[in-house]
């Protein structure tokens, strides 16, 4: 049996209905979801009506889109879909193929808990073992950790939201922290402490005096809303050097997987943070459960807070397994997966809300590993 067939059978043994989603998706789907950062990796073309299309960069997106369609009709409860088929990505490394196969699964509407996270990991490593690869280096991440620390620090909401978005950008948190002071001058500072009605009147006055009128798609009300959000941050507010340092420690944490829970606990303790407890308990339980699998895949595993933040729709548990721990190997994982509970909601503009997690195995990389072994 071929590697993809073996992988598919191993996944089928767990659950799931086989689906065959379309090869083409509207380019706006990945671009709206992930922004311009993904453009350098997706294969796009424009049709006669100027609609931009993309060859699917993964199967998660078209499968999740189809799921949204079904769930708009009726509540499906818990579902599991499995798939096998080609995906198309412009290579990040020279000579990597643009088109290659993925075998994987998506599970929707299941409880968002440790048990299901572990189930996903276990399903994928069993599929890998079935194909003949029984060891690898795993990198774990959890994209809910940094936001949990931000929340626990109790910043004004506008600052918290800004920091969480900054987390998703390379160098974003540092840029955000260093931009703090500059933002305390200018018009936004002048409306500090005003009510929303007062700000609206102030903005009207400025428009009347200067003759400037709002143009295009962004209304005066949005400008007022944004100024108001800023005005709720008191002029004296500043992220302290201690808080900056704490965020930096969380952000750059990169340790052996088994040590990650204690490392995060100790950062929380040093900062006297209590609000982060729930996230850390869940993280600790999951780590323990994954370690008790006693798998060769977790023996050399490491954890990095930042890991996975560029895979833009992931929002919790995330992992990749590669042949080795070095950078070149980690750029070519043969297993990847994680949780994206807000994906269906984002794709359906809020019409559908169901949890989601899923993962893939990449047969051609498994095959090349098997080739190296023999």
């Amino acid at each position, binding site marked *: 049996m071929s590697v993809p067939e073996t992988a598919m059978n191993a996944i089928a043994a767990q659950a799931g209905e086989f689906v065959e989603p379309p090869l083409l998706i509207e380019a706006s789907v990945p671009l709206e979801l992930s922004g*311009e950062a993904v453009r350098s990796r997706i294969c796009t073309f424009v049709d006669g009506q100027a609609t931009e299309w993309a060859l699917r960069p993964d199967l998660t997106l078209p499968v999740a889109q189809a799921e949204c369609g079904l769930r708009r009709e009726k509540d499906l409860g818990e579902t599991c879909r499995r798939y096998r088929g080609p995906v198309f990505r412009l290579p990040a490394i020279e000579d990597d193929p643009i088109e290659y196969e993925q075998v994987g699964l998506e599970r929707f509407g299941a409880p968002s808990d440790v048990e299901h996270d572990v189930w996903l990991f276990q399903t994928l490593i069993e599929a890998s073992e079935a194909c003949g690869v029984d060891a690898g280096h795993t990198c774990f991440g959890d994209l809910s950790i940094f936001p949990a620390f931000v929340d626990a620090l109790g910043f004004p909401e506008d600052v918290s939201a800004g920091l969480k978005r900054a987390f998703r950008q390379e160098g974003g948190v540092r840029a955000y922290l260093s931009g703090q002071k500059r933002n305390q001058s200018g*018009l936004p500072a002048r409306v500090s402490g005003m009510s929303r009605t007062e700000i609206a009147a102030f903005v009207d006055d400025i428009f009347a005096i200067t003759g400037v009128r709002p143009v295009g798609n962004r209304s005066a009300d949005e400008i007022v809303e944004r100024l108001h959000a800023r005005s709720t941050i008191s002029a004296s507010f500043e992220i302290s050097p201690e808080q900056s340092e704490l965020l930096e420690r969380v952000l750059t944490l990169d340790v052996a997987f088994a040590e990650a829970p204690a490392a995060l606990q100790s950062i929380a303790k040093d900062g006297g943070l209590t609000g982060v407890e729930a996230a850390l308990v869940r993280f600790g339980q999951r780590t323990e459960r994954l370690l008790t699998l006693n798998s060769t895949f977790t023996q050399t595993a490491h954890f990095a807070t930042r890991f996975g933040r560029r895979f833009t729709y992931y929002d919790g548990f995330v992992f990749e397994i590669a042949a080795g721990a070095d950078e070149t190997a980690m750029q070519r994982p043969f297993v990847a997966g994680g949780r994206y509970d807000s994906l269906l909601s984002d794709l359906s503009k809020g019409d559908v809300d169901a949890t989601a997690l899923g993962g893939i195995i990449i047969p051609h990389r498994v095959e090349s590993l098997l080739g190296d072994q023999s």
Partner: protein
Amino acid sequence: MTRLSIAIPSKGRLKEKSEDWLSASGFKLRQKGGGRGYSAELKGLPDADIMLLSAREIAEELIAGNLHIGITGEDLLHDLSNTFDKDVHVMRRLGFGGADVIVAVPASWLDVETMADLEAAGALFRQRHGRRMRVATKYLKLTRQFFAEKAVGEYRLIESPGATEAAPAAGTAEVIVDITSTGSTLKANDLKVLDDGVILKSEASLVGSLRANWSSDALKTLAVFSGSIEATAAAREQVRIESDCPIPESVIQAFDLTPVSAQIALCTSKNASNAARALAEVGAQTVAIATINQVFSSDNAVLENFVKNLSQSA
């Protein structure tokens, strides 16, 4: 491609300014087939092939190595080249065609003064409209790089080959990245530049291709061309001082003069009158200061740097 190929902008102010700049060094452009022809010759440089192309084409062809040298904007080179330092070498900035590539938003966006403000406004825009804020530009790569540097991810690019400044009012985009020299077009369209929104300061430049196939003949012609260009540039900063008696070593030292003969020396424009006074003090009856057209010297640092870069990238 054994003969030196030179591309010059084919239209507009950039062409006029380029012609003036070339003729200051003794190279007169003559278009074949009248004013509309796209091949030409430079009087004074018979061994070069001259082409008239758009500034964008010149940048593309330099990067691809299909031209030896050309006059174009650095904005275009930066946007079109993935490996700037390996593709091209800026030999000389020409002092015209100056413009900035900038990020601009509607002047009515009172809440947005910096790129960080734009990021936050973009996030709110996405919440309200269910789609990302759009940025219209022809500088796709420069924009992507700059927004990533500033950690701004809440946007989508819309390619706009022309009249970009009209996009916000037309509703096809909310933000623009465009080139501006005076800012008047932006003002006329009720747009403002963000405080930290200058992506690149650009001007017309003489650029050599590091990808082109350089024959020894082409390099020889380049040496003639560049020698004359640099001679003109050197002359711009200097004047000629002539005295009725020999110029003493003390004055040469004090004012950093370049002696041409016993009674004649070159001097920077700003030192000239002080040097003349110093000469009068040591006995000169008459000292003349004259402007000069060109100063040829045996070394040409601009050419040497280019050739060095060329041999390193080969």
